[in-house]
């Protein structure tokens, strides 16, 4: 070999080794650049509007024993009116992470969709935000899928929405060069995995592999001719064929379990107690167990009943808290996720200081959330994660952190922060990490 060729080959080999992605013992493949804190993030939007008075300040006693340490007894009228709940499946999560007691939603209308949009885009909104459109800025799902190296599949990003109205929009934005090709798999399980849904979607025509191949050829033939006419399809996010088969197998499995009655009371809390928030988290757990995504966002909403029923709000807060405690237990007992997942919990907005005129059975006034009320902007946040990565048993009591910090923090955890450096106004929630 000539000396020149030798040197050239050596240089190319060295460059290839440096640039080659690492294959970890777990089988996971990622590029050498972009160091990560953990390989999975679950963001739980503890949403619907929660005041710090009822959450971390425990004005009605400890309504959140799944998250917050302490055994403060509930106010007697509330205690007498709420549904019985079994003990949480694991001890209060506060000790496993960092609690921000004075987190803030600093700017923008204090509406639910504004709060959600801020939380998933890392940008505050204003009155121009349309409730009929997708966010105007890239969501955390798009930032992750576009800027992670290697590019992440849709099956690695999930948005589990409590309802199929409005909130499904949050799986991708209208921002140029982002959009559906980088969006998350959106699922609204409570409006899909139910009895009407099972009747409509639970018994699909099945094809053998041989027949599926023939049908695929037919579709390919027809689509090829149609595409040549210059028309493109708008089908939301698109999974790869392989991932689409996995998602379909998942939905079949869920409908099968639903038919067998396994979803009636899966946590043993009682069918009357298992509300929409709990069901949404239950299906988020199913997605986590099945797909082990790197990024999953799930929301809850039951506490919004507070507009008209303060006591029911307290009850919904207890159930939401119980569900998140269960969620963390599931994460820590799922191979591939355990000790490699950061869970971020935060409401999207707070609620007003003063009640409205609607009173409940206990004579408590309902609470709205208006933009000019400072208490509607006071939140908490809890960050849980592997010891050694996340600061455990830590409380940040002073005003620190805000809603727009969550997206940059997720970017830092998953190692694509440097790829979007400076693009977001928020900051990394450093206090929570070692």
């Amino acid at each position: 070999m000539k000396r020149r060729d030798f040197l050239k080959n050596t240089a190319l080999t060295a460059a290839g080794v440096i640039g080659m992605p690492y294959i970890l013992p777990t089988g996971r493949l990622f590029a050498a650049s972009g160091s990560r804190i953990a390989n999975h993030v679950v963001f739980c939007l503890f949403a619907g509007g929660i005041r710090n008075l009822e959450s971390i300040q425990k004005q009605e006693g400890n309504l959140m024993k799944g998250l917050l340490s302490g055994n403060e007894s509930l106010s007697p009228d509330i205690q007498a009116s709420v549904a019985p709940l079994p003990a949480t499946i694991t001890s209060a999560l506060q000790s496993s992470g960092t609690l921000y007691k004075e987190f803030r939603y600093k700017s923008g209308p204090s509406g639910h969709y504004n709060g959600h949009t801020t939380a998933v885009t890392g940008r505050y909104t204003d009155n121009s935000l349309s409730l009929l459109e997708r966010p105007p800025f890239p969501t955390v799902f798009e930032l992750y899928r576009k800027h992670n190296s290697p590019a992440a599949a849709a099956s690695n990003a999930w948005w589990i929405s409590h309802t199929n109205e409005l909130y499904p929009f949050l799986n991708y934005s209208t921002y140029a060069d982002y959009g559906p090709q980088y969006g998350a798999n959106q699922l609204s399980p409570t409006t899909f995995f139910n009895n009407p849904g099972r009747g409509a979607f639970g018994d699909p025509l099945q094809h053998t592999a041989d027949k599926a191949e023939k049908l695929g050829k037919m579709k390919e033939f027809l689509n090829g001719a149609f595409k040549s006419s210059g028309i493109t399809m708008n089908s939301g996010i698109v999974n790869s064929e392989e991932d689409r088969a996995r998602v379909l197998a998942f939905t079949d499995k869920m409908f099968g379990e639903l038919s067998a009655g396994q979803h009636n009371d899966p946590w043993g809390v009682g069918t009357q107690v298992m509300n929409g928030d709990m069901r949404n988290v239950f299906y988020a757990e199913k997605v986590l167990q099945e797909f082990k995504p790197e990024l999953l966002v799930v929301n809850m909403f039951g506490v919004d009943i507070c507009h008209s029923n303060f006591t029911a709000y307290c009850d919904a807060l207890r159930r939401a808290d119980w569900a998140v405690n269960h969620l963390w237990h599931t994460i820590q007992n799922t191979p591939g996720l355990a000790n490699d997942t950061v869970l971020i919990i935060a409401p999207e907005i707070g609620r007003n200081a003063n009640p409205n005129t609607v009173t409940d059975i206990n004579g408590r006034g309902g609470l709205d959330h208006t933009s000019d009320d400072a208490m509607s902007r006071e939140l908490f946040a809890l960050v849980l994660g592997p010891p050694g990565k996340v600061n455990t048993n830590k409380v940040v009591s002073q005003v620190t952190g805000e809603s727009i910090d969550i997206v940059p923090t997720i970017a830092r955890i998953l190692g694509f922060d440097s790829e979007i450096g400076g693009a977001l106004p928020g900051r990394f929630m450093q206090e929570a990490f070692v």
Partner: protein
Amino acid sequence: MKRTYWILILGIVLVSCRKEIRNVYEIDPVHVGQRGSKTHLKSDLQFVSIAYSDLFGRQISTQELNTLIAGYNSVGDKGLVIDLIVRNLLQKPGIVKETASEMQSDPEAFVKKTFERFFIRKPSEMETWFFSDLIRENSDLNPEDFYYALMSTEEYRYY
């Protein structure tokens, strides 16, 4: 005499040059759709209700429509959920369909009828050949399989 002659000649000319009036009774030309003329994406509501009426030959009920739309809005991958809707509809009783033997006995007629039913257009010569050949070569394929294939295409999402 000479004047009478010219009047006679002029009369003959006028009569012979009168335009013949012919009343024609016919059907206005029917526009045969082409795949390239479909440029409008069906809305979710349109897709589901058209799919239903194409299969069952009747309008979908409000309750059934609401259930299908609720499911459609619950899943982000619209291609996936459309596939689920179509495959579930194909399992339900009451579909208007040819038998497999009818399909096998005259593949070209079946292809023409199926294209007109789902695509509102005649198949091209290439399409007629492609699908007729498939029918002849694959006895395991039944009419529902062809309905499924056509309803799963991009063309079917447009009108």
